[in-house]
C-alpha cells in the first residue's frame, strides 16, 4: 500500500511540471486556435539551453531560466511572426505542416549541435531527499512542483488582472469583439506565443535538475501535454493543474504496479478515452 501512495505522490509532483508545460500549450491553442506540434520540442530546446548554460558557466539548473526565459520568449515571438502569422488564414492542415516542419527542424538542430546521446547536468543545489512518515520525497521534484504551482498562479493572475492578460483572454473568447475594443490581434497572438514558449523555459530548467535530455524527448512531452489539455479542456487553469496531477499520478502508478514500459501506454489511453467520453474535457468551458 505504501508503495502505491508513494508512487502517486511522486507522480503528482511530476504532474505539476506537466501542468506548467500544458499551460503554455493551452495559451497558444486556446487563444489563436493554432495547433503547435512543436510544443514538446520547445521543452526539449529549453532543456538543452539550460544544459548549455549550466555546463558552460557552471550555473545551477534551477537558475538557468533567468537566461532561458527571455530567450524562449523572443524565440516564441520570432516563430510567430516568421511562421505562424502567415498561416492564420490557411486551413489548419497548413498550420500543422508548418509546426511539424518546425518540430523536425528543432530536432535536427538538437542532434546536430548536441549529438544523439543524452545530456545531463552533474549536480544541482536542490539535491537529496527527506522523509515524512514512511514516505520519501526528493527535494528536486518537490521544489519543481512548488515552482510550477507558483508560476501557474502567477500566469493566472497575469491573465485576470493585467491589461495584456485580459486582452489575451478577450481574444480567445471573441476575436472580433476584442478587435473592436482596440485589441491588436497580431501583438496579442505574438504575446501569447511568446508567453507559451517562455513557460517551457521554466519547465525545462526544473526538469534539468533531475532528468537528462535527448533530441527525441519532444515527442513524449508533446503528446503528454496534449493529453493533459484534452483531459482538462480549454479555459480553466485550476483544471489544468488537476489534470496534470491525474496524468502524472496515473503514469507513475502504471510504472510501479504494471510495467515501466507501460507509462506512455496509460497516458495515451487516458488521452483517447478523454476524447471519446468527454470531448470538452473535465473542466472545459468550450
Amino acid at each position, binding site marked *: 500500500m505504501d508503495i502505491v501512495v508513494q508512487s502517486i505522490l511522486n507522480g503528482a509532483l511530476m504532474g505539476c511540471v506537466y501542468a506548467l508545460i500544458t499551460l503554455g500549450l493551452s495559451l497558444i491553442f486556446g487563444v489563436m486556435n493554432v495547433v503547435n506540434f512543436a510544443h514538446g520540442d520547445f521543452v526539449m530546446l529549453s532543456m538543452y539551453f539550460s544544459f548549455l548554460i549550466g555546463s558552460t558557466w557552471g550555473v545551477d539548473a534551477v537558475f538557468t531560466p533567468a537566461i532561458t526565459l527571455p530567450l524562449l520568449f523572443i524565440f516564441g515571438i520570432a516563430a510567430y511572426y516568421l511562421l505562424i502569422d502567415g498561416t492564420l488564414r490557411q486551413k489548419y*492542415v497548413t498550420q500543422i505542416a*508548418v509546426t511539424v516542419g518546425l518540430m523536425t527542424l528543432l530536432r535536427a538542430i538538437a542532434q546536430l549541435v548536441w549529438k544523439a546521446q543524452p545530456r545531463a547536468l552533474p549536480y544541482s543545489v536542490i539535491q537529496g531527499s527527506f522523509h515524512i512518515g514512511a514516505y520519501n520525497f526528493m527535494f528536486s521534484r518537490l521544489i519543481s512542483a512548488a515552482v510550477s504551482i507558483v508560476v501557474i498562479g502567477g500566469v493566472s493572475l497575469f491573465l485576470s488582472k493585467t491589461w495584456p492578460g485580459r486582452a489575451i483572454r478577450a481574444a480567445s473568447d471573441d476575436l472580433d469583439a476584442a478587435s473592436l475594443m482596440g485589441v491588436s490581434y497580431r501583438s496579442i497572438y505574438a504575446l501569447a506565443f511568446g508567453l507559451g514558449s517562455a513557460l517551457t523555459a521554466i519547465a525545462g530548467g526544473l526538469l534539468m535538475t533531475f532528468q537528462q535530455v535527448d533530441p527525441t524527448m519532444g515527442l513524449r512531452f508533446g503528446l503528454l501535454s496534449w493529453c493533459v489539455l484534452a483531459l482538462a479542456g480549454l479555459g480553466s487553469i485550476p483544471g489544468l493543474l488537476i489534470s496534470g496531477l491525474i496524468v502524472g499520478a496515473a503514469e507513475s502508478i502504471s510504472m510501479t504496479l504494471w510495467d515501466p514500459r507501460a507509462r506512455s501506454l496509460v497516458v495515451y489511453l487516458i488521452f483517447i478515452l478523454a476524447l471519446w467520453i468527454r470531448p470538452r474535457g473535465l473542466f472545459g468551458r468550450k
Partner: protein
Amino acid sequence: MSNRWKAINRALLGVALTVALAVPLLIGSNQYNLVLVTTVLLYAVLATAWNIIGGMAGQLDLAAFAYLGLGAFTSGTLLIRWNISPWLGMILGGLVATGFAVLVGFPLFRFRVREVWYALTSAALVEVLKVAFVMWEEVGGPVERYLPYYDFSLYHLRFGTYLPYYYILLAFLVVAVLVNRHLSRTRLGFYLRALGEDEDAAEVLGVDARTCKLKALMIYAFIVGVVGAIYSCMYGFIHPNFFSSPASTEVAILGIVGGMGITYGPLVAAIFLVSMREFLRANLGGHLESLYLAIYAVVLIVIALFRPQGIATFLQDGYHWVISKVTRSDHVVKADSTGV
C-alpha cells in the same frame, strides 16, 4: 477537343508508367539506388492511400504506420510461425488493419472527434500500438523476429534483391491511384470532398458523415495494411519500431504539401521530397548526421508557407499552360481540385 485532352492525358500517363517501369533498368545494378527508388515508391503508395482519408475527407490521420505495422505483424507472424505465404498474409494483414480502423474509427467518429483532436488521437494510437507490441512478448517483444531467408521465392515473397519489391510496390501505386480516381467519380468521393471542405455544411445537406468517414478510413487502412506485408518481407524482419510516429507524420505531410485532395499530389510530393531527403542524407550524412533533416524541414516549411495549395499545383499550372499552347485555345479551365 475533350477527346484530344483525353488522348494527351493517356499519353502522359503512358509515358509516366513507362518511365516508372524502366527506372530500375536505368539505374542498373546499384542496389543502393534501387533501395532509394523503392523507398520513394513506398512513401508514394502510403501517401496516395492517405489522400483518401486526409486529402478527400479532410481527416488529418497521423496513424499510417499503425496500420502498416499491423499488416506487417500479421503477415510476418503467419509466415514465421506457420509458413503461410505473405500473399495470403497481405490480405489478412489488410483485414486486420481494417478491423482495427473500424474498432478505433467507429467510436471516434461517433463521438465527433475531429480535426486536431482526431490528428492527435491517431498520433497517440501509433505509440500505443508500439508499446503494446513491445510488451506482447508472444508476437512482438523488444527483439527483431526474422523472416526466413530465400534468394528468390515467390511463395515466401522473399528475394535477395529489391527489384521485385519495386515492381510490386509500383503495382500497388497504380492500384492506389486508380482507387483514388475511381472514388473521386463516385457518390462516396463527392461526399468525402464535401466533408473535407466543410463538415457541418455537408452534414446539413444530408451527408452521413460518420459512415462516409469510416468507409474512407477502412479503404485507407486496408491499402496501408497490405503494404505493411510487403514492408516486412522487404526488410526481412518485424519489430515494434515499425509503429513509427515520425514516419506516420511524414506520410501526412507528403499528402499536405503535395496538395490536399489532388490525386497525384502525394505522389509528386513523395517523388520530390523523399528523393531530396535521401539524396541529402547520402551526401551530407557522412559529415553532419542531421543536416539533411534540417534542410528537409526548412523545405517543408517554405512549401507550406508559400505554396499552401501544394506543390502539385505547380505541375497543374505547367500542364495547363502547355495544353493551352498545344491546343491554342484561350479558354482553358484553370487548375481545379479534382486533379490533372
